[in-house]
């Protein structure tokens, strides 16, 4: 009957809003759910380095190059905290990377869209990081300790990125006509993919019941999506940009919220299943980097082993 007691302790901690720590007993499906969610999140950070990284060598001013470089590095850092948090649940980095490289693991679908102009980098900071924060703020209070602590750090940096993105967008929107056009085009292209980041409509969303109970999730996809739209529309207006093409954005006096058109969920499913505009390129880039790094990692391992042997012999 011991297991039953463990489960009681676990449930008791959840009920009291206490953290579950790596050495605590936890139900197997809780562990599995977290490994999947945290590793997907880590993969998103790592793959997320690519679309913005695409513009580092072409950043149009030294200041913007420094800001972008630091941002992409932060994302790598987030990936690192998250891989470490997932490792504390008993999986290994190699296992997680293998799942990413073979296409078994998922990552945020937004990174399967290309960054065609510099304004896309600004749009990612403003919209994509803005949406990510909305998803992530609630995870700061999630039930698994290492994940919660990682998210507290990540959220701080993400909100900084979001402000930088909006600032970059401001420069474009109030810049030359060509810059403004670039900004509008980026908004048009990133609007719907950003709305998709909140996941499918509540009516079709799996994984929600336990996720709420385990404080892995606190609000529904549709609630978060609505909140994002409400927050972003005034920003679009401030920038003097048009609402994105076919966005259907309209103030609803009864609801006191903005109405908006649903993204194309068929496209969403296609991107999730590997058919987005850049899925192939992103996976290929990750695989190539990993493969090219193989001899480097092997050299480091061999050298470390030799050092260890030397120490033991001495």
């Amino acid at each position, binding site marked *: 009957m011991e297991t039953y007691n463990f489960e009681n302790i676990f449930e008791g901690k959840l009920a009291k809003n206490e953290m579950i720590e790596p050495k605590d007993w936890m139900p197997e499906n809780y562990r599995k759910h977290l490994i999947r969610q945290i590793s997907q999140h880590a993969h998103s950070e790592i793959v997320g380095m690519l679309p913005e990284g695409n513009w580092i060598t072409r950043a149009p001013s030294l200041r913007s190059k420094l800001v972008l470089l630091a941002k992409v590095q932060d994302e790598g850092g987030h990936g690192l905290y998250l891989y470490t948090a997932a490792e504390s649940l008993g999986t290994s980095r190699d296992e997680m990377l293998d799942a990413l490289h073979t296409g078994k693991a998922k990552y945020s679908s937004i990174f399967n869209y290309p960054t065609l102009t510099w304004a896309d980098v600004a749009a990612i900071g403003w919209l994509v990081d803005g949406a990510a924060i909305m998803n992530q703020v609630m995870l700061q209070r999630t039930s698994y300790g290492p994940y919660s602590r990682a998210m507290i750090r990540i959220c701080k940096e993400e909100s900084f990125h979001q402000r930088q993105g909006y600032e970059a967008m401001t420069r474009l929107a109030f810049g030359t006509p060509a810059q403004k056009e670039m900004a509008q085009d980026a908004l048009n292209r990133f609007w719907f993919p950003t709305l998709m980041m909140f996941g499918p409509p509540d009516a079709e969303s799996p994984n929600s019941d336990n996720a709420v109970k385990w404080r892995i999730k606190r609000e529904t996809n549709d609630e978060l999506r609505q909140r994002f739209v409400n927050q972003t529309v005034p920003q679009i207006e401030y920038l003097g940009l048009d609402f994105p093409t076919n966005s259907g954005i309209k103030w609803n006096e009864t609801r006191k919220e903005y109405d908006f058109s649903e993204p194309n969920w068929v496209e969403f499913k296609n991107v999730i299943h590997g058919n987005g505009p850049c899925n192939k390129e992103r996976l290929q880039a990750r695989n190539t980097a990993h493969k090219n*790094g193989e001899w480097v990692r092997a050299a480091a391992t061999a*050298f470390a082993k030799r050092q260890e042997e030397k120490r033991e012999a001495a």
Partner: protein
Amino acid sequence: MNHHYKFILRLADNGLINSQRLTEWTGHGPFLEEDLALTNIALDILGRSKMLLEHAAKLSGLENVSEDTLAYFRNEREFLNTKLVEQPNGDYAQTIVKQVMVDYFDLLHYTELCKSSDEVLAGIAAKTVKEVTYHYRHTSSWVTRFGLGTEESNQRAQAALNELWRFSGELFFTDETEKFAEENGIGVNINASKDKWTKTITTLFEEANLKIPADAFMQDGGKNGLHTEHLGYLLAEMQSLAKAHPEAKW
């Protein structure tokens, strides 16, 4: 071009082109921790170059010159970096071998420049020494790992050394610009550090079972704007967006 300006520009360009190459690795490094470390090095060097270019812009005596116009609106023949830093990244061994030579040179050079009569430069140098000490520790430890790691890593590091050693001499190239800087207390006699550089770098490579090419003919010219063909492509990429919108502010 006045010598003081040219002296600062050489320092700035060397860092700018060096960091431009390093950033090509961001997101594509051999493993995550190393990706972050190399990006960090690139950030330090780029930050330093930005400060040096701001300083150079003031010394240029020209109107409407800023760090960005210097970085984005000069052509190949106007860049004054050494040929070493513009060489393509190649594999990770090439990147590391190139970087370790630059890092140790910078460590010695900027240590001396802390005493510069140019207070702006002295300030930048003080910050740089702290950063480069760490960079050199990082890159030199990789030379050791590559040299003594596996047969493949040793071969790759040796190939990198064979390819790049001929560009190392230019780090110590001096002409009337360096002489002017030295005489006015802005710069130092960098050749006074050459023996120390050669001895330390040679020892580092030798202890890692790597041989320095004996008969290398040293290349120079970069510090006077005569580059290898690689620089043109690097600049074409780096400057493309800025040049497409000369009126724009970013």
